């Protein structure tokens, strides 16, 4: 006969329930990933040698998120950023953006070389007719390279600008060094640290190209004094050009025209002789200007940088006259002390000597200079910054922790992670890793702890039954558009050719040849060899006809006058044509020098080690009480701007060595308890077969003891395991149970073991019980599902009352 047994069914139900409780995978909201970063639970318990990958990465903020991937668990395999599509694509994008910006500037520079543009006119006047075309060709070559049309790089080049593609190729193409790098992992003091850093390929390119061009140009040798002198001189020429223009404009007769021409010629000669004017004419400085002509599009600048050298400010004109007066006074005092007896006043002399050249320190507008210096240094620091650490990611070496990110809106995710909600016990804590914390800001955990009953979920259930988320690169475009076009250029009137009358008495005939006589008549100021030769050639035939026989006669005089008149006509035209160019050059250079600053000889690269974002690793506090603990990670954006992240709540429970339980016990083996009674001379035997028994017993838990609040299925093996000693109800001495118990869920005890039942031994003879012995027998196995007896009693009472 087979009997129905419900215990296996209960076990199967428990197994199904266990399977239904598998870890949930965190799902990410794609929309939020665009602007923020995600978080993901990390529980590396199973793989101590963890290798992480970016799960997501945002370039501007350098925020990262990590994910452990199975394929990277290989200990010897380094993590490669370029293997991460998000990062390697950023590298390509950044370099392409820089090249695009450069192309824009070069295009603007090429456009400014149009014949109608100021730069074209200046270059043509200053460096010659071919200069604009030459620069245009060089820029065009660079442009082609940038645009990827000419992949080849010309390493040998006399013109500096021709060397630029080489630097571009070195820094701004995909094949060059990667923008983002990841260090480590380095193990130290219980942490595994990786640092995400980036380089600024644009700055690296500019600095390297600058140092290359600067070394060849020697512009850095320019001193502040010289620069000031050059600026003052060119400023003077600029003003003079206005006056000469006015003189020319006011000329109404031959005499005044000559005066004006004299002024223009003198202006021209003086300008050519000016050191400041000639300073930039040599080929090295020309190359220097060409090399950086694209950076500010249509403006040539001695110093293309936004910053200058410190000496530029030390001798800044902001130093007022008092400094100079003071220095002069001290110098005179020193001179006086030297001239006269200073015995007995040596100490005073020392003090005075100490004050030599200290006028600028005393009377310079220090604050203003300091401000300028600070601004200058800030600009220099920004320009020379070729790399920096972005994000220091620090993960504890310990086996389990939880990753938070400051950028993630946890509200979009259910607080489903088991590590956060898992019950802890006495003295235990949880480790929370907060990624992407702004450097220098506070972060931590806010803890709200309250005591709560140390009761298992099963116990509560029974009771209920009873009662019921950087920097974006940009060029410094602050230099802005070119200044206003020189008004002098546009307002300079065209000078009408001056007609010299043949009746002029200004020319006297001498014994020299016609040409010599003619040249002698031309004032030295206006002797232009080119024009003189041109006039000579123009009248050479006439000279042959008059040289010998008509010398000193009126025909010669007439010829000389004719030549003079022609020459002056040409000269006037030349002057009037040249003056605008002279004027423009003077004004252009004046402005250039006025705005120029000293050029640093060499630029050093800088790397900022302080990361923008750091990682906070926090431990929750520990307690020996049964608590409900609510933890809220936070960080500060600013002093009064605290951002609280999604809270998590968990229970803290105690370990219990001993536990009571009650419930149904089923003995699989068929057992019969026989009882014999002697009544009225008869023996009455009764057999009781009861495989189901109500049992109650004591559990002695192994390990640290059972944690009632730990609601995980199965849990820790030793803690959930216990030795069970129980008795049957209602015959406690008739049924004893000894077994092994496991709490698949805390409080729900599954027991298996041996059932010892009482089976008295009777000696019966002739209807008389001769002897009766107390004896226990073992039945194998027994199974039991039991719960907390108090809860069971409550439930039974509820059932009974209903």
């Amino acid at each position: 006969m087979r009997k129905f047994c419900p215990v296996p069914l209960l076990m199967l139900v428990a197994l199904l329930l266990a399977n239904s409780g598998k870890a949930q995978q965190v799902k990410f909201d794609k929309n939020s990933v665009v602007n923020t970063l995600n978080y993901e639970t990390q529980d590396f318990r199973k793989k101590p040698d963890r290798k992480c990958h970016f799960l997501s990465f945002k370039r501007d903020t350098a925020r990262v998120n990590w994910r452990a991937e199975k394929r990277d668990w290989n200990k010897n395999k380094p993590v490669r950023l370029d293997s991460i599509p998000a990062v390697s694509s950023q590298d390509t994008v950044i370099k392409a953006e820089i090249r695009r910006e450069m192309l824009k500037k070069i295009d603007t520079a090429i456009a400014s070389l149009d014949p109608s543009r100021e730069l074209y006119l200046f270059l043509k006047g200053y460096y010659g007719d071919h200069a604009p075309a030459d620069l245009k060709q060089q820029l065009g070559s660079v442009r082609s390279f940038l645009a990827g049309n000419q992949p080849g790089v010309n390493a040998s080049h006399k013109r500096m600008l021709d060397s630029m593609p080489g630097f571009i190729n070195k820094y701004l193409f995909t094949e060059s060094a990667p923008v983002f790098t990841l260090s480590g992992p380095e193990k130290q003091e219980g942490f595994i640290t990786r640092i995400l850093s980036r380089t600024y390929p644009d700055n690296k390119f500019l600095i390297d190209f600058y140092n290359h061009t600067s070394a060849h140009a020697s512009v850095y040798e320019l001193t502040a004094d010289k620069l000031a002198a050059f600026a003052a001189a060119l400023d003077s020429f600029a003003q003079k050009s206005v006056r000469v223009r006015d003189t020319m404009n006011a000329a109404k007769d031959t005499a005044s025209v000559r005066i004006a021409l004299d002024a223009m010629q003198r202006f021209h000669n003086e300008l050519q002789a000016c050191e400041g004017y000639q300073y930039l004419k040599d080929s090295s400085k020309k190359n220097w200007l060409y090399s950086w002509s694209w950076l500010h599009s249509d403006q040539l600048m001695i110093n293309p940088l936004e910053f200058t050298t410190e000496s530029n400010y030390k001798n800044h004109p902001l130093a007022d006259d008092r400094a100079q007066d003071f220095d002069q006074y001290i110098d005179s005092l020193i001179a006086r002390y030297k001239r006269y007896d200073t015995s007995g006043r040596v100490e005073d002399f020392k003090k005075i000597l100490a004050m030599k050249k200290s006028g600028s320190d005393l009377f310079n507008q220090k604050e203003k200079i300091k401000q300028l210096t600070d601004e200058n240094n800030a600009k220099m620091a920004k320009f020379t910054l070729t790399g920096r650490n972005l994000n220091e990611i620090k993960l504890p070496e310990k086996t389990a922790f939880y990753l938070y990110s400051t950028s993630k809106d946890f509200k979009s995710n259910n607080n489903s992670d088991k590590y956060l909600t898992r019950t802890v016990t006495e003295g235990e804590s949880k480790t929370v890793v907060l990624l992407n914390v702004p450097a220098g800001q506070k972060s931590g955990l806010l803890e709200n702890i309250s005591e709560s009953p140390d009761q298992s979920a099963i116990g509560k259930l029974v009771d209920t039954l009873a009662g019921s988320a950087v920097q974006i690169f940009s060029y410094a475009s602050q230099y802005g558009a070119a200044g206003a076009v020189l008004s002098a250029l546009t307002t300079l009137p065209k000078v009408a050719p001056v007609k010299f009358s043949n009746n002029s008495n200004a020319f006297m005939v001498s014994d020299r040849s016609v040409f010599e006589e003619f040249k002698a008549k031309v004032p030295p100021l206006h002797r232009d060899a080119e024009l003189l030769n041109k006039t000579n050639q123009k009248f050479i035939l006439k000279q042959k006809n008059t040289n010998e026989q008509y010398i000193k006669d009126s025909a010669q005089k007439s010829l000389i006058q004719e030549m003079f008149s022609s020459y002056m006509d040409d000269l006037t035209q030349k002057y009037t044509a040249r003056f605008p160019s002279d004027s423009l050059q003077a004004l252009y250079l004046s402005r250039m020098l006025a705005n120029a600053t000293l050029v640093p000889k060499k630029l050093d690269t800088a790397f900022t080690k302080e990361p923008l974002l750091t990682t906070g690793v926090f431990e929750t506090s520990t307690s020996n009480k049964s608590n409900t603990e609510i933890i809220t990670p936070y960080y500060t954006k600013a002093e009064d701007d605290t951002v609280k992240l999604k809270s998590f709540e968990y229970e803290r429970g105690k370990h219990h060595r001993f536990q009571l339980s009650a419930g149904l016990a089923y003995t699989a083996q068929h057992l019969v308890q026989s009882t014999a009674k002697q009544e009225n001379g008869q023996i009455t035997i009764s057999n009781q077969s009861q495989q189901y028994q109500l049992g109650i017993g004591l559990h002695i838990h192994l390990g640290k003891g059972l944690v009632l609040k730990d609601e995980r299925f199965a849990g820790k093996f030793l803690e959930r395991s216990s030795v069970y000693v129980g008795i049957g109800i209602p015959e406690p001495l008739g049924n004893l149970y000894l077994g092994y118990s496991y709490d698949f869920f805390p409080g729900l005890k599954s027991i298996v073991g041996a059932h010892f039942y009482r089976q008295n031994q009777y000696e019966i003879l002739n209807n008389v019980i001769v002897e009766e012995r107390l004896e226990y027998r073992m039945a194998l196995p027994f199974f039991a599902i039991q719960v907390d007896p108090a809860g069971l009693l409550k439930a039974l009472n509820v059932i009974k009352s209903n």
Partner: protein
Amino acid sequence: MCKKNTPLLLVAVLIYTIVSSCTKTDKKLYLRGRLFVSDEILLGKKDLPLAQKRVLLVDNENDSLNFLYSDTTDIEGYFLFNLLNDNKDHYTVRFTDTINGYRYFGSQPVARGEENILLTIRLDNSTLNYIKISSQDTAGGGIPNAKVSFFTSSVLAQLGDTTAATLVGTADGYGDFVTYKLKPGTYYVNSQKSVDTMKFEKLAQEVQIERGKPIISILQLTRIK
């Protein structure tokens, strides 16, 4: 991994054990049967259920003195023994008693859990003092309903007074009288028959009765008046 799967492994083992243990057959702790008597000598019947008779449960079938405990048959002769859970599988059910003064005996080995035990008892011949007296006439014909009396004294037998007889009985229609009641010894037998005014008689015929030895004695009656 091993640690993680331990509980699941535990569950699997438990389920297997439970299922396998539930397939075991129950152990029966009783015996049930019916008591019959078969005696064509005295009772002249076969397989007659015996009610209210005590049936003994015997542990050792060789022990004719002792038994374990007994049960009394119901009105239909059924008996039931509840057995102790003492792991014994084989017993003997036995009946020993007198019916109408004659000893009857029956024994049957049984196995635990038997439900159709048939215990048939029979007359115990080993203790019977069998003697048969045949009353005949001189021609050898049987004299029906002859009065047979046993005397221990020949003198009293010669007197022919039946009041002094040890046993008095009447022969059957064939002139035979059988008895098991007399003790072994020497007896003097009278057989008398009266027919109207005629009287036939044989007095003081000596017979020796021995235990377990059947004796047949023929008495020829003669007419005395």
